[in-house]
């Protein structure tokens, strides 16, 4: 485990008078899988939005590889190598699975704009590259059978994998996954854990994971950050978190009579 890749430094976000995220600080290290957990309404997705530029923090800074990325537009954050998925499944519904993944490689496929009309060899080489890469991702995520189906016709499990495929296609350094296991059955969740491990270990991607399926969290994460009511209440290894009284209280509620 090496230096901090992503750092949140006292980040807060208010909606009206309500603080959805309050003074949250943590760091994701390069090469690790860090999970962000907490009960409903704890501010996990808001934190995601604050990191990826979909929301601007009310205060505090976000740094990626030491550079301040606070308040950058989402596409700028993505172009730095921070790519996210969404809680409710989000893909390019009307496009085929293949085109979804091709579109995901937008950043890699960029050429000078005039090349749009005079593509030449460079563009066709780039195109061929992208196709190969797409086929590879289709294979890797077991979507080959669905190659030409429109994304919106996919069954749920395939859809969630497609979502991850799009994010991987974008070539991230840090991958942010928002509840990738929601709605998956036990076997599918196990596959997901395997997938995360391969991506992390073999492809060298760092992962920030928001997940409710504790099985997945406990198995996949190197470390865990716990939020409750917008504040960080714990940080540590899965084993430490599992036995943390405050975390258990946050999840199961306090027993009557406890302070």
């Amino acid at each position, binding site marked *: 485990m090496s230096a901090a890749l992503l750092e949140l430094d006292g980040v807060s976000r208010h909606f009206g008078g309500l603080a959805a995220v309050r003074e949250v600080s943590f760091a994701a290290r390069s090469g690790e899988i860090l999970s962000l957990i907490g*009960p*409903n309404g704890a501010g996990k997705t808001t934190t995601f939005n604050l990191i990826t530029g979909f929301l601007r923090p009310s205060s505090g800074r976000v740094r990626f590889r030491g550079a301040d990325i606070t308040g950058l537009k989402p596409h700028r954050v993505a172009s730095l190598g921070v790519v996210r998925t969404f809680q409710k499944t989000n893909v390019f519904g009307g496009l085929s699975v293949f085109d979804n993944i091709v579109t995901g490689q937008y950043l890699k496929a960029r050429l000078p704009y005039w090349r749009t009309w005079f593509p030449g060899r460079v563009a066709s080489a780039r195109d061929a590259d992208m196709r190969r890469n797409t086929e590879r991702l289709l294979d890797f995520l077991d979507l080959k059978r669905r190659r030409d189906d429109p994304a919106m016709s996919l069954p*749920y499990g395939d859809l969630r994998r497609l979502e991850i495929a799009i994010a991987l296609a974008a070539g991230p350094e840090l991958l942010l996954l928002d509840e990738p296991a929601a*709605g998956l059955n036990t076997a599918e969740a196990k596959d997901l854990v395997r997938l995360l491990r391969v991506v992390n270990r073999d492809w060298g991607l760092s992962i920030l994971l928001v997940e*409710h399926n504790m*099985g997945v969290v406990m198995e996949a994460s190197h470390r865990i950050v716990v939020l409750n*009511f917008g504040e960080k209440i714990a940080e540590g290894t899965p084993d430490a978190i599992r036995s943390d009284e405050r975390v*258990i209280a946050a999840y*199961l509620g306090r027993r009557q009579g406890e302070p």
Partner: protein
Amino acid sequence: MTAVLSVDHLDVAYGQVQALAGVSLAVEAGEIVALVGANGAGKSTVLRAVSGLLRPRAGRVSFEGRRIDSLSPRDILRAGIAHCPEERKIWPAITVAETLELGAYTRRDAAGAERDRRRVYAYFPRLEERRRQLAGTLSGGEQQMLAIGRALMSAPKLLLLDEPSLGLSPMLVDDLRRVILDIHCDGVAVLLVEQNVHMALDLAARAYVIETGRNVIDGRSATLLQNDALVRAYLGA
């Protein structure tokens, strides 16, 4: 006692996504039953299917012996089931008093509605103080009270409560617990979905635990609390 609400082998799908697969449960008259499970397990979906917001793909829902799974929300409400939805869903630009009036939308007995209004104000004195305020200007806790009050205005025999403690401070959660008990004491059955498992199991006599759209355990709350499977359902193995 026999079950007022019985849900048998309920299947619900959102488009391609199967959300519930054969969920069954029962609520008896005047009873508080908790429905717990991890996020995304399908708890809210059960409530939405019971109140008619969703059409089940298979299975049946009966209330007081009558099948209700193809009725409109309006008819289900009239049959005596009120649903207090997740995230409160208050009407931000409508006053507290008017929200309660609208809660009695389907009722024809003015006297009864008046009685229920007084009852709601008795449960939640804060609402009476703020009756002229727009709902959007209330605090989170007050909005939750308003949402419950609105559901009670239809004089239900069964109240479906979806995550009422969500986003409330511990003090407010205690208040809420007391109110739910009061409602229960007034003879209303409650089907409670809660992520705060301790609160849920304290209140409920019985509970069902569901995981990824399926029943996993059910039983008396007291025994469930000792069950490791429950902790596992929340914090993983």
